[in-house]
């Protein structure tokens, strides 16, 4: 079994803008890695290629199964009229019970009242936690998270990070973040995208 997700000579342009130019990178599997760097350096583009959402112009990625990825997108991408439990249950209905989903949501600070509301009525921080639990509970080999902790205050962020680490179950986790403290809290390997 591969120890790394191998990215070889990966390039991607949008119109005239070259976002990734011959990128070579090895990402340790079954570990937590943080991709860090300023905006516009191609972090989101890279993970979108890894997830198969966009195609690279050239190059290849080996060692990742695009059919087994749980995601926390940069935008929440929740089904707005459904409540938190149903948003998670709809992607995990074979593997998770509603009771387990509720207990996870409770653990991250969403009370009964919050859980029953359509997610469109939840605060940004609550919505983010719903997204994170949705990805954690999804049965997959890799979890990709694009700025997953934005909108969370420091104490809540700590709690969410601990929950993520405790429920990793040996999976590869790739987190895009601007915050070095988050990377430290996650005890993650840092991949620097600063050019």
């Amino acid at each position, binding site marked *: 079994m591969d120890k790394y997700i191998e990215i070889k000579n990966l390039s991607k342009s949008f119109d005239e803008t070259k976002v990734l130019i011959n990128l070579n990178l090895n990402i340790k599997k079954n570990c937590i890695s943080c991709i860090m760097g300023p905006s516009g350096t191609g972090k989101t583009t890279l993970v979108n290629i890894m997830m198969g*959402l966009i195609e690279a112009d050239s190059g290849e990625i080996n060692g990742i199964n695009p059919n087994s*990825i*749980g*995601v926390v*997108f940069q935008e929440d*991408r929740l089904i707005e*009229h459904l409540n938190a439990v149903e948003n998670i249950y*709809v992607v995990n209905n074979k593997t998770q019970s509603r009771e387990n989903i509720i207990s996870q949501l409770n653990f991250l600070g969403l009370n009964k009242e919050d859980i029953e509301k359509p997610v469109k009525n939840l605060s940004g921080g609550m919505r983010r936690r719903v997204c994170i639990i*949705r990805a954690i509970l999804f049965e997959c080999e890799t979890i990709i998270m694009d700025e997953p902790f934005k909108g969370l205050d420091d104490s809540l962020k700590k709690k969410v990070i601990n929950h993520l680490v405790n429920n990793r179950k040996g999976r590869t986790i790739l987190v895009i973040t601007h915050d070095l403290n988050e990377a430290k809290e996650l005890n993650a390997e840092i991949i620097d995208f600063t050019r």
Partner: protein
Amino acid sequence: MKINIQNKKKNKRIIKILSVSFWLFIWFVLSSIINMEIILPSPYKVVITLLELSIKKDFWISILLSSSRIIIGFLLALIVGIIMAIISCNLWVFETIIDVPMKLIKVTPIASFVILALLWVKGKNLSVLISFLMVMPIIYTNVKEGIKTTDAKLLEMARMFKIKKINIINKIYIPSIMPHLSSAITVGLGFCWKSGIAAEVIGIPKKSIGFNLYEAKINLMTKEVMAWTVVIIIISIFFEKVVFFIVERWRIKWINT
């Protein structure tokens, strides 16, 4: 705040009643000035005529037959419009082929359709065909718009998380289509009444509202023409309210389940 909203609602209702009374008054004054029933009968005379008509069995049979034909046309348009929109969104060749007749139907005058259709179908089925033809493009266009404007990022999320197709339809597509479908139904219903009755006036099938309107017109029975027009307006508003109520209930139920 609550009292304010209630007062506003009450005031709106009073203004509505006053507005209707104002126009009835204008009608009454005009009919008194003209003083010729054949040109403009008074509202009172029209109401009396309506009451006289309503005690006849044929009056109710005409309403029932016309309504059922128009509603059949409407329901057919609803079903076919939705199916065609779904196919169009999945098959661009079909969409390209079907877009031309849809646009043509939209810009063709009802009268041209009715006269053409009279060559193909019997008078009594004309209103079914015409209501169908007038409403179907509205349903088709709106449902297609609803499908196409479904949040692409949400669909991407569904793909990543392997959400079942049935859940994608139920929880993502249908809530996106519903507002479009709801407005298409409201607009389409009004349209199908107008076009359906117009078709009956030209096709003159026996025991229909259109036939009665036509008969009243050629016999210069203006009171009857206006009484039947009032009937058409009442039925049209009634159906619009009932259907809107059903659609809204269904939409809310769908979202809640």
